[in-house]
C-alpha cells in the first residue's frame, strides 16, 4: 500500500520534471519579461509531491511497515520513536530520497526568490536543476528504490545499526545534505549563467545567499559529525583524515574559496570565470564524495555496507555532469582582464583561494592515490594522518596570518599603514606563546609557529571586535566571528594535542591502577535494562593525586539485541578546562576489562570555536535578511 503510494509520488515528480524542462524551454523563446505562472505551479506541485513521498517513507518507518525492504532492513518495532524517524535517512535508499527532496526544494525556492534576476538565466537554472533531479530520480527508481517491497512480509525488522542510534547522528545527515545538495543550485545557476550570458555582479548577487546557506550547513554538519565521532566511537579523537571525512572536506574547501571570491566578483566585477569553475566543482566534488563513499571504493573506518552497482550509476552520471560542464564552460566563457594591485583586498582573497585549492588538491591526492596504486600495481595501501598533517598543518600558519591582515586592506588599492600594528601584535603573540611554554611545557618549533600565528589571528580579531563595538559596522561582524573562531579552533586543537594524556590498560573488577596524576579504582559493575538494549555499567572512582579530588565515571557496554551488536559508550566528564574521557570494553568475556583513560584539555572550547565559525555564516544570513 505505502509502496505504491510512494512509487506513484516519485513517478509524478519525475513526470513534473520533464514537464518543467519542456515548458521552461518553450518559455525561453517568448518575448515576455516574466516567467509564466504555470511554471511556478508545476514547480510547486513537484515540491509538494517530493515532500509527500518522503513523508510516506517516514510513515512506513513509524508504523514499522515491514512490507518495505528498506524498513525491514533498517528498523525494528522496539526501536525508540525518535530513531524510527531518524532511521528514514540512516540508510542509503532513504537518504537518496532526502537528497532528491533537497534538490527539488532548492529548485523551487530559487525560482521564487530570484525574481529580480534575468528571465533566461532563471529558466536555464530551472532546466539544469531539473536535469539533475531527473538523474537522481532515475538512480532512485532503477537502483535504490526505498519503496521496494518484500514478500512474504517479515514479522520483525533487522534493526538500525546501534552506532547510528544517537541524536548527533540523527541530525548530521540532514545538515550535511542541505550543505552538499544545496550546492546543486549554483551548479545549475553557473551553467545557466554561461548559457544566458547573465554574468558579473548580478550573477554574484543571485547566488550569494545560496552559497552562504550551503556553507553554513556544511560547516555545521562536519562539526556535528566530529562531535559524534568524539563521544560515540570511543577513541577520544574527532578527526582522523579518514576517506569519508576527507570526502566531506573537499567540497568544503571549494565552497570556502567560492564564498570569498564571490565577494570579489560582486564588488569588483572580476574573477567571473574562476567563480564559475568553483561553482561547478563544489557540487561535482559533493557528488564525487558521495560516489566514493557509497560504492565502497574507498576503504574507510566509517564505511557502512556498500554496493558497487551504485557506484557505476553515480560514476556515469558524474561523468556526464563533468563532461557537459566542461563543454559549456569552454564554449561560452569569456576572456577577462585581470588587474590587481598587490596592496589590495583582492590579492588576499586570491591568496585564500590558492591555499584552499592547495588543501583541496592535497586531500584529493591523498584520497585517490590508494585507488590508483591498487589499479596499477595491485599494492594495497592507505594514506594515514601523518601525510595530511605534514602537508597541511605548516600551511595553516600563513593562512592564519593572511586571515588576520587581509580584511584590513581596502579594495583596488590600499594605503593602510598597519605595519606597526602587525609588529606589535606578533610580539604580543610571541610573548603569550613563551608564557604558555614557561608554565605548561615545551613543544616543537612548528607548534611554536602555529601557536604564534593562531594567537596573532585571535588578537587581531579581538581588536577588530572592539572596533566593531565602537562603530557598529554590521558587515564586519560575521567575518570577525568566523575568523576569530578559526584562530581559536587552531589554538585549542594545538593545546589539546600537546597536553592530552592517554593511558590504555586492562583491569579486573576491584583492581586499582595508578597513572601519573590519577588513581583509577574499578569498584564494581551493574546491569541495567533499557528499551532496546541492555547495558553493563562500570563504576570507576577517579582520584586526582594532586588535590585528592574524587570523581565517579560510568562508562557503559551496551548490548543491543536487534541487530545483535555491542557498543561502548564513553564516560565523559566535561569541565571548562578539560574533559576526562574513559571507555571500557571487554573481549571474549574475559575477566579483564580493557580501559582507555584520557585527560583532554579544552575539549569543550574546540567545539565552541568550531561552532563560532559556522555562527559567523548564520549571522551574515540574518543580517542580510534584516537589511532587505
Amino acid at each position, binding site marked *: 500500500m505505502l509502496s505504491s503510494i510512494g512509487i506513484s509520488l516519485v513517478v509524478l515528480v519525475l513526470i513534473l520534471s520533464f514537464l518543467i524542462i519542456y515548458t521552461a524551454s518553450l518559455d525561453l523563446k517568448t518575448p515576455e519579461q516574466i516567467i509564466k505562472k504555470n511554471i511556478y505551479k508545476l514547480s510547486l506541485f513537484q515540491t509538494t509531491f517530493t515532500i509527500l513521498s518522503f513523508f510516506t517513507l517516514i510513515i512506513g518507518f513509524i508504523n514499522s511497515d515491514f512490507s518495505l525492504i528498506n524498513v525491514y532492513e533498517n528498523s525494528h518495532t522496539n526501536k525508540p520513536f525518535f530513531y524510527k524517524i531518524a532511521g528514514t535517512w540512516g540508510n542509503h535508499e532513504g537518504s537518496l530520497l532526502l537528497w532528491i527532496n533537497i534538490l527539488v526544494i532548492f529548485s523551487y525556492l530559487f525560482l521564487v526568490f530570484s525574481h529580480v534576476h534575468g528571465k533566461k538565466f532563471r529558466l536555464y537554472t530551472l532546466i539544469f536543476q531539473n536535469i539533475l533531479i531527473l538523474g537522481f530520480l532515475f538512480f532512485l527508481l532503477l537502483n535504490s528504490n526505498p519503496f521496494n517491497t518484500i514478500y512474504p512480509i517479515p514479522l520483525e525488522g533487522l534493526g538500525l545499526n546501534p552506532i547510528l542510534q544517537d541524536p548527533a547522528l540523527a541530525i548530521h545527515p540532514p545538515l550535511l545534505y542541505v550543505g552538499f545538495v544545496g550546492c546543486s543550485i549554483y551548479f545549475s545557476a553557473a551553467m545557466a549563467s554561461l548559457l544566458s550570458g547573465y554574468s558579473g555582479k548580478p550573477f554574484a548577487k543571485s547566488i550569494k545567499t545560496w552559497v552562504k546557506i550551503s556553507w553554513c550547513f556544511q560547516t555545521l554538519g562536519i562539526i556535528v559529525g566530529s562531535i559524534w565521532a568524539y563521544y560515540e566511537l570511543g577513541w577520544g579523537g574527532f578527526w582522523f583524515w579518514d576517506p569519508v571525512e576527507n570526502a566531506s572536506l573537499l567540497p568544503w574547501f571549494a565552497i570556502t574559496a567560492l564564498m570569498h571570491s564571490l565577494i570579489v566578483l560582486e564588488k569588483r566585477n572580476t574573477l567571473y570565470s574562476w567563480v564559475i569553475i568553483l561553482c561547478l566543482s563544489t557540487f561535482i566534488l559533493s557528488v564525487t564524495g558521495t560516489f566514493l563513499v557509497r560504492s565502497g571504493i574507498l576503504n574507510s573506518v566509517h*564505511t557502512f555496507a556498500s554496493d558497487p552497482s551504485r557506484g557505476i550509476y553515480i560514476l556515469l552520471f558524474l561523468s556526464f555532469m563533468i563532461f557537459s560542464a566542461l563543454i559549456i564552460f569552454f564554449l561560452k566563457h569569456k576572456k577577462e582582464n585581470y588587474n590587481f594591485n598587490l596592496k589590495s583586498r583582492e590579492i588576499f582573497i586570491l591568496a585564500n583561494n590558492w591555499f584552499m585549492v592547495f588543501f583541496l588538491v592535497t586531500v584529493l591526492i591523498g584520497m585517490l592515490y590508494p585507488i590508483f596504486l591498487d589499479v596499477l600495481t595491485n599494492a*594495497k595501501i592507505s594514506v*594515514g594522518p*601523518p601525510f595530511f598533517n605534514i*602537508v597541511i598543518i605548516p600551511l595553516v600558519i600563513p593562512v592564519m596570518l593572511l586571515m588576520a591582515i587581509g580584511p584590513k586592506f581596502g579594495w583596488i588599492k590600499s594605503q593602510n599603514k598597519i605595519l606597526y600594528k602587525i609588529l606589535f601584535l606578533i610580539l604580543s603573540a610571541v610573548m603569550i606563546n613563551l608564557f604558555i611554554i614557561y608554565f605548561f611545557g615545551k613543544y616543537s618549533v612548528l607548534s611554536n609557529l602555529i601557536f604564534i600565528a593562531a594567537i596573532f589571528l585571535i588578537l587581531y580579531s579581538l581588536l577588530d571586535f572592539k572596533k566593531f563595538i565602537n562603530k557598529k559596522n554590521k558587515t564586519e561582524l560575521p567575518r570577525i566571528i568566523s575568523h576569530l573562531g578559526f584562530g581559536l579552533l587552531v589554538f585549542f586543537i594545538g593545546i589539546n594535542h600537546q597536553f592530552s594524556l592517554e593511558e590504555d590498560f586492562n583491569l579486573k573488577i576491584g583492581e586499582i591502577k595508578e597513572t601519573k596524576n590519577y588513581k583509577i579504582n574499578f569498584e564494581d559493575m551493574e546491569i541495567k535494562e533499557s528499551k532496546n538494549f541492555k547495558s553493563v555499567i562500570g563504576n570507576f572512582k577517579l582520584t586526582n593525586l594532586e588535590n585528592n579530588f574524587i570523581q565517579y565515571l560510568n562508562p557503559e557496554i551496551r548490548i543491543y539485541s536487534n541487530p545483535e551488536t555491542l557498543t561502548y559508550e564513553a564516560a565523559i566528564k566535561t569541565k571548562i578546562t578539560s574533559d576526562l574521557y574513559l571507555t571500557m570494553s571487554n573481549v571474549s568475556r574475559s575477566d579483564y576489562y580493557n*580501559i582507555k583513560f584520557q585527560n583532554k584539555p579544552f575539549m569543550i572550547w574546540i567545539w565552541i570555536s568550531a561552532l563560532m565559525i559556522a555562527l559567523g555564516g548564520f549571522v551574515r544570513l540574518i543580517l542580510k535578511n534584516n537589511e532587505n
Partner: protein
Amino acid sequence: MLTKKVKNRILFLIFIFLFSVISVFFIIKSLNENVLYFSSPSEIKQREDIPFGRPMRVGGMVKKGSITISQKNIQFIVTDFENEILISYAGTVPSLFAEEKGVVAEGKLNDKNFFIADRILAKHDENYMPPEIKEIIEKNAK
C-alpha cells in the same frame, strides 16, 4: 618585440607553473613517505623485502580461541587460512572485534611472526568487511 604586459604575463605563468610543480612534488614526496602498506600474513611470510620498523597494516581473520588477555595487553592470532601471525596490542579494541571476524591492525612488524599493533581499526557495521580481507578470504576459500 614583446610588450611589457605580455612579458609580465609570461613571467607570471612561468612562476605559477614552477610553483605548482614544486607543490605537487612535495605532496607526492611526503605521500610516499607516509603511506601504510597493507599485507596479509602470507605476504609477510613470502616477501623478502618487508620493512621492519616501518608502520604498516596487517589484516585477516582473528583465529578462533587465540585471544589471550593480560593486564598489559591483548594478544591474538590473525590468519588468512594459509599463514598466521601473532599480534600484540595494548589499547582499546573496537566493539566489533571478535573471534572469527575480520580485523585490520596498524603497527610495526617485530619479526615475521610477531606484529606489534598501535591501533585496531574500528568498523561500524557488523555486515561490513574491508575489501582487502574479503579478497584474501575469497582467494583462500577456493
